[in-house]
């Protein structure tokens, strides 16, 4: 859908002012803290340990890429990390901006023992995560874990 509001507000219309007023009322109502409207991923994500039907992060799935992503999680569950990598690369060709796929790629690289690349994929995921604080935290945790393991 076309964006309703562009970054640049060129014409200040009455309608716009009314909308602004509504928004201020909204803010004054105790919602001053930034609201995260991005879809919240499932609790269990990532799901490579889970056999059977993998969970799909809500709002981040589109049919074909998601099917490939599911292939990847199943391959991970079976310990076939190279196959998981291939499926994720294909998923990323269709949906290159999906930060969850990049994060899962980081997981795959970690399991393959390619720690440096694992960290880099997590950084990539973070750069695309916007304000999805949960995903950012998941990435940070994996990065920390790798750094702890490699330093000890």
């Amino acid at each position, binding site marked *: *859908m*076309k*964006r*309703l*509001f562009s*970054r*640049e*507000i*060129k014409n*200040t219309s009455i309608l716009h002012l009314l*909308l*602004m007023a509504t*928004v*201020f009322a*909204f*803010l004054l109502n105790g919602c*001053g803290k*930034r*609201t995260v*409207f*991005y879809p919240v991923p499932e609790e269990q994500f990532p799901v490579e340990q889970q056999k059977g039907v993998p969970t799909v992060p809500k709002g981040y799935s*589109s*049919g*074909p890429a*998601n*099917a*490939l992503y599911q292939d990847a999680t199943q391959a991970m569950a079976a310990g076939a990390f*190279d*196959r998981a*990598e*291939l*499926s994720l*690369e*294909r998923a*990323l*060709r*269709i949906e*290159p*901006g999906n*930060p969850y796929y990049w994060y899962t*790629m980081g997981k795959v690289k970690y399991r393959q023992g390619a720690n440096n*690349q694992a960290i*880099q*994929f997590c*950084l*990539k995921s*973070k*750069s*695309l*995560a*916007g*304000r999805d604080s949960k995903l*950012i935290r998941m990435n940070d945790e994996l990065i920390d874990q790798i750094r702890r393991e490699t330093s000890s």
Partner: protein
Amino acid sequence: MQITEISEEIRTKFDGKRWALPAQVYARPLEIYSGLYLSPDKFVKELELSGYRVETDVKTPGGYSRTGNSFRLITRPFTFPGGEEPAKAIQIQFVDNQIGSISSTISSENLPFVRFDPARIGSFHPLIHEDRVILQQDQIPEMLKLALMAVEDKKFYSHHGISISGIARAFIVNIKAGKTVQGGSTLTQQLVKNFFLNRERTLSRKFREVIMALLLEYHYSKEEILTAYINEVFLGQDGRRAIHGFALASQYYFRRDLEDLSIAQIATLVGMVKGPSYYNPLRNPENCLARRNNVLAIMFADDIIDEATYNRATSQPITDVAPLKSGFNRFPAFLELVKRQLTKEYREEDLKTGGLKILTTLDPHVQLIAEEQLSRTVEALTGNESRAEVEGAVIVTGRENGEVQALVGSKNIRVHGFNRALDAHRPIGSLIKPAVYLAGLANGYTLTTPLNDVGISLENDGKNWQPKNYDNVEHGRVAFYRALAKSYNLATVRLGMQIGLEDVVETLNSLGASYTGRIYPSLLLGSLNMSPLEVTQLYQTIASGGFYLPLRSIQSVFDNKGKLLTRYGLKVEQRFPAEQMYLLNHVLQRVMTEGTGDKFVNPQQVTLAGKTGTTNDLRDSWFAGYSGDRLAVVWLGNDDNESIALSGSSGALHVWGRVMNTMHVQPLRVPEPEQIVWRRIDVDTLRPTHIFNRNSTVLPFIEGSLSGNRPDGSSLDRGLEGLENTAREVLDSIDDLMR
């Protein structure tokens, strides 16, 4: 010559030739899924390139039928790095120019996506104009061997290389006729002629042929000789390409793999051995039909086929398809890139004889668009004027994976000559500016830091240098973002000198360049030479938000047994913080709407980003830019380095625009890092202002840069615009929810 010497020669040559399996190069596999933008006609083009054939009733892999926007087809099996993709019988429904649904013809079940077998786009054969698909012994259909022996050499399994009775019979027939009408050659002798001897017809050559045939039989098994024959025999000519072997002939004449051929089709090919030109099914269909039926009659007489089969086969037409004008070496510029990348890891010898299977990243659909739009736009831009010598190059890659989808090295696609995409090293002009401004952002500049766009005199490489703006006007105090969007030279030089040239070169190299030359001020305006491919690497890092992605043209390499040798997977490396890249991306988007790229016509109404580049006296015209899914770099120039009278904006941008507009591109959406805040700025004072100021614009800033630490000492305090900012975020969020 001694027998032992001939023997040695045979062994050396036969072993060499027998195992000379040229590397086969494939395009990327087409992956289709519901929602993919692809027109039915473009889809047909893809199928054609992969050698699919039209059939009314689709029964075997490689056949398809189309009814309006609906397709039925059977894909061919193909081995990918993850394993074999089996053949699939599917039905595809297009809705407008998108794929609506894909379902299995057998189970009617919906399929989320289907991966096709990729088109073969070339091979690295020792001889440029020869092509063949090599089969191993166990891949040859029994029917072909039987038919071939029945027609050409009935006693193949019992003779020792020559057939005395055959020679005697031919001798008598020829004497009676008064000329040569029958050859007495065995398959072994025919192979010897093809492999080792020239075409002269003398007694000594005949003698040599006989000796060699006997020696060949002595050293090698019947199966080895028959296999070599089936792979070697000449079966026609496709333009400059010689069609060798039954496997390739089968693909060329029938668009089928050899194992899928009907008996009538096998008989056609076997009949052609006698005279590939005279019995050519395309040029001489009547001769071919008579010959084929003759072959079928011999097969029937020898009990290879029964009467019913014979009757059915003789009633069939010769061929039901147009010959496959394949993509074979159709994309020489891209193949050269593949070869250069391969020769870093493989020996030339392995490429030509190792039977490698190389899966590349070439997207034929994108490649064809890039080729066509380059030549058409250059023609439209230059017409019949003196600028007719304008040449060009185009490279298209995946924005987030660095896969080279298309590479064009000349406006004359068919001419395999100077590959400008790889080898034209030219000054990059203003394309260097994002590196200068990125170095500025790393040094604490913000998008509103004022820069002085006024004349400057510097010592450059021992000479006095006084750069000028493109329009020869000095613009005075300009905002950082505006100087880049408008590509002001003076402001850029001053910025670069303030940061320090070393910093700029370091940034340039972090982006992917490998500049080690002398450092002098005119570098700031792009006086260094780079090829379009090198520029693409540079902009890849910018387009992917500061992550260095090595450009890849190869996905994987298999050996001749189908074992995966090397896979070139996705690799990323963060070189710049996401926040700085976000600001740079924002300005490069402004280039397209209010800067030097604003001449771009944007019918798809998508957000794009890019940068123009022009060099002194309009010698080079560059444009590098990206959408959400693709990065494209265009260079136009003259091979003699003469002026082409085109700027980046009046030349390369047009090619770029047409390439982007012909493809369906995704809009660029760069996720906003957490530390980004937006402020409304008065465009003249460059100070924060209120929402009612019409002479204002909203710009992103890195949170910490808002107070105190701006290089110009000013600060941005949060006033009314702070509230506006919060309101805007909420509006955006509502917008996101409604999307």
